[in-house]
């Protein structure tokens, strides 16, 4: 199986590695680049645990091959923190509201809701539920996740 050199930007840093054509983006991020914050749940695009942001849009990294991301800009959960490791308002609200239990779906939830707030800083509950509708969580029943996003939106509004 032929190998391809892939160079892409991950959380603002240029990274590169080699991958077979059939290697998925999530396997490349985790196993080649060591970015294990992104998780694998179903490998068929339903659960959303592997969500990352590519060129500003959320994508399922289990449904993409790594070669398709060559030259693109990727943000993973590891990219949410500030440069000094400070939590983003969204991360802090997830913590404050205990918007998780086992933490396995959390990276995908953060990616989905981070993207939502970029596009719509003032979402109502239905819009939040719509935004996480493709991310499955088995621990929380989604309620504290919704509350965390509402708290973040409120804080962001207060800050502007």
């Amino acid at each position: 199986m032929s190998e391809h050199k892939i160079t892409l930007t991950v959380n603002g840093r240029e990274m590169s590695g080699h991958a077979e054509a059939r290697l998925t983006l999530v396997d490349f991020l985790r196993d080649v680049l060591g970015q294990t914050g992104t998780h694998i749940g179903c490998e068929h695009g339903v659960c959303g645990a592997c969500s990352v942001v590519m060129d500003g849009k959320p994508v399922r990294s289990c449904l993409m091959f790594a070669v398709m991301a060559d030259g693109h800009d990727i943000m993973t959960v590891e990219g949410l923190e500030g440069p000094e490791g400070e939590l983003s308002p969204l991360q802090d609200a997830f913590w404050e509201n205990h918007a998780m239990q086992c933490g396995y779906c959390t990276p995908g939830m953060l990616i989905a809701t981070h993207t939502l707030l970029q596009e719509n800083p003032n979402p109502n509950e239905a819009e939040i539920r719509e935004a996480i509708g493709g991310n499955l969580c088995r621990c929380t029943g989604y309620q504290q996740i919704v509350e965390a996003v509402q708290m973040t939106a409120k804080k962001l509004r207060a800050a502007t």
Partner: protein
Amino acid sequence: MPDTNASPEYRYITKKRRVTEDRRFITGRGNFAADYNMPGMLHVAMVTSPYTCAEIKGINAEAALALPGVRYVLTGAELFENINPLLSGLDLPKVKRIPLAHERARYAGEWVAAVVAETRHIAEDAVELVEVDYNPIEFVIDPEEAMLPDAPLVHPQHGSNILCDKTWVWGDVDDDFESAPHSLAFRARWSRCSTVPIETFVVTAKWDEGKEVLDVWASIQMPKYPEQIARALSLPVNAINVHFDVDVGGSYGLKRGIRQTVIVSYLTRKLRAPVRFNEDRLENMSGGEMHGPDRIFDMEVAFDDDGIMHSLKIKATDDAGCYPGRAPLQLGKPVSAIVGPYRIKSASYTAISVTTNKTSQEAVRGFGQAPTNFAIEVMVDKVARKLGIDRDEVRRRNLIRADEFPYRIPSGSEYDSGDYHTVLDKLQESAGWQELLAKRDAIRAEGKLAGLGISTCLEPSGGNSSFEPFFNPKNDTTTWMESCLIKVDMLGSITALMGTSTSGQGHETLLSAVIGEVLERDPDTIRGVHAESLGALPSNSPVGSRMAIMLGGAAAGAAEKIKKQLLEIAAHNFQLPVDRLIYDGGDISVDGDPDKVMSWNLLIDIAHRQYHKMPLGSEPGLQAQHTWEVPTGGALPAEDGTVQMYPCYAFEAHIPLISIDPETGQVEILDYHMGHDCGTVLNPDIVRGMTFGGIAHGIGAALYEKFEYDEGGQHLSGSFMDYLLPSSHEIPHVEMIKHYTPSPLTTFGQKGSGESGYLGAPAAIASAVNDALAPLGKSIETLPMRVRDIEALLNGQIE
């Protein structure tokens, strides 16, 4: 969340406090089993049987082994020769459970051979090249057909497909039925489903040749895991080191991958390299430890004109699937609350476990209680409907009253405490029961279907092993302990060890809050640690909704020992008796003489460095372990067939309002209200989260989730496209109201909440759907009540 009658006297527990574990999850720094990579690690993929039942005539791995990167192909025959069969919960000596099929594959999807390669991709390629010579033979899928005399036998050596068939009668059931003016009987069906974590089971094993220790990193939640590995591999337990600090990506009882662990443990010793098996979703759903109870209830109840229920007969027939591990014991836990929260004076229970050619059943949240609660609640609704009494009123008339606790039920368990009427009253008031009825009727007036549901259920918590000797007299286990070791280091910081893994329950947070409470130290400075098994403590793991009670109690007990040691050091230095001293925030002063004070730092320094200031003969350093037995545990079942099972009983009441689209059968949950009493709440956010999550699991079980098999025994629900998990669209906002009736048996009055929500939601949704169908004269007693099932019922395609 309205917080009424909360206990005000605590510093840290019962208060809002951030969950320690969350920080690593929001920053992508969790340590899940798949995150552990090591040089030279090999990967496993499974060859699975395409047949529902087949003899394995031979396995030809030549082509697979010829593929570059393939290192080994392991078969069931090799494992059978080299390991001991895995434990069964029942006394079934002739049913051998080997991690890979040996001689016979007994369900479609069963793992027949394990291919080991340098990458998972190569292993999957090689799976296609393994040639298995199968001889398909007869099989049986339906549990009732499996009990017929001429049914094909899943385990011919056992001589029957019935694994267990036991009946208990508690009280004068026949007399009570004869004397009651009414009775009714019905059948209810809880279909095969489970709590399906988003992480599959993952395990890596590495044989450390220098130390001669087997290191294991696994997404495990199971009692006696190191011991089970040791038994299977004929190794001493002190040669097994399970890294319990691995974060487990959801479990809810299910993550019990002993087969997977034995396979990679055997392979790492054989191949002298670390070996990982990371189930993909299909391996997980079809062949792994993923299926829950699959149960037929035949119910009878005797009651009078007022709706008072006098006696109850339950026959539960449970399809254990192919290999009975602990699963048949899930028929046992419901004995702890066999009459629910009701004053039913006699009961009989027949528990039948049947083996079929399906994936093996595994433990699921509630350990069999959620299905039983569902069947009991369907029964109560039927009593109400038959007499024309409101469903809430029938419950109110039958619920155990607050002044009756402790209350001993016919099967022998004593319920510790409760105030069921108050919780129901508070819930109905906060939910606006009358307004919800009006809202329902308004929807009906528009020509749609609408229903208001109600359930009142118990969550037995604290966990003990009583169902083991109860179902298997050869098993005399009565110990079900938990431990905590607290170390205060030389500079005064506190570290607490537990001997188990965690899968989202926040055990580190639990330890720091409880220890902080007892020692009056800031919990944010206290570290909870999941010890490796070689350094771990006696534990029975986080099962049975027990850790708030048991780990919380162990931590409090150890902290009290630390406090006692500090007081003894101070007493020695003040030359005063301990009862003259006051402990305040870690400092110790003399009662009536506040200037005489020894600080926390000084006391710790003495303990670690100044032996000349220590009481004569005392141990230097400062640490204490507390291991305790589950309250009310420690006894075998009585000869009269009664048994004290779980110590603590939490109560939950649910009220959902739903509508049903009369064209499609689609259920929409419009409102959801829940009343919850689990005693003293140690961390409100954790209890809320577990309860909301439990409700979501319950809604899934009630409306969507089923592991479906076709008539040929092929599993049809191997992916998330076929096994439907509810999303944020299907799960509603839940309004929860709390009440706090402390348990007299636990350190702070806490009860369990790890199964809350799940134990009442399926019953409540079923109640709501049947309320919606009642005007049509129809009802449905089978879960899940899927769109197509309801549509078929509405269109008259099924009765």
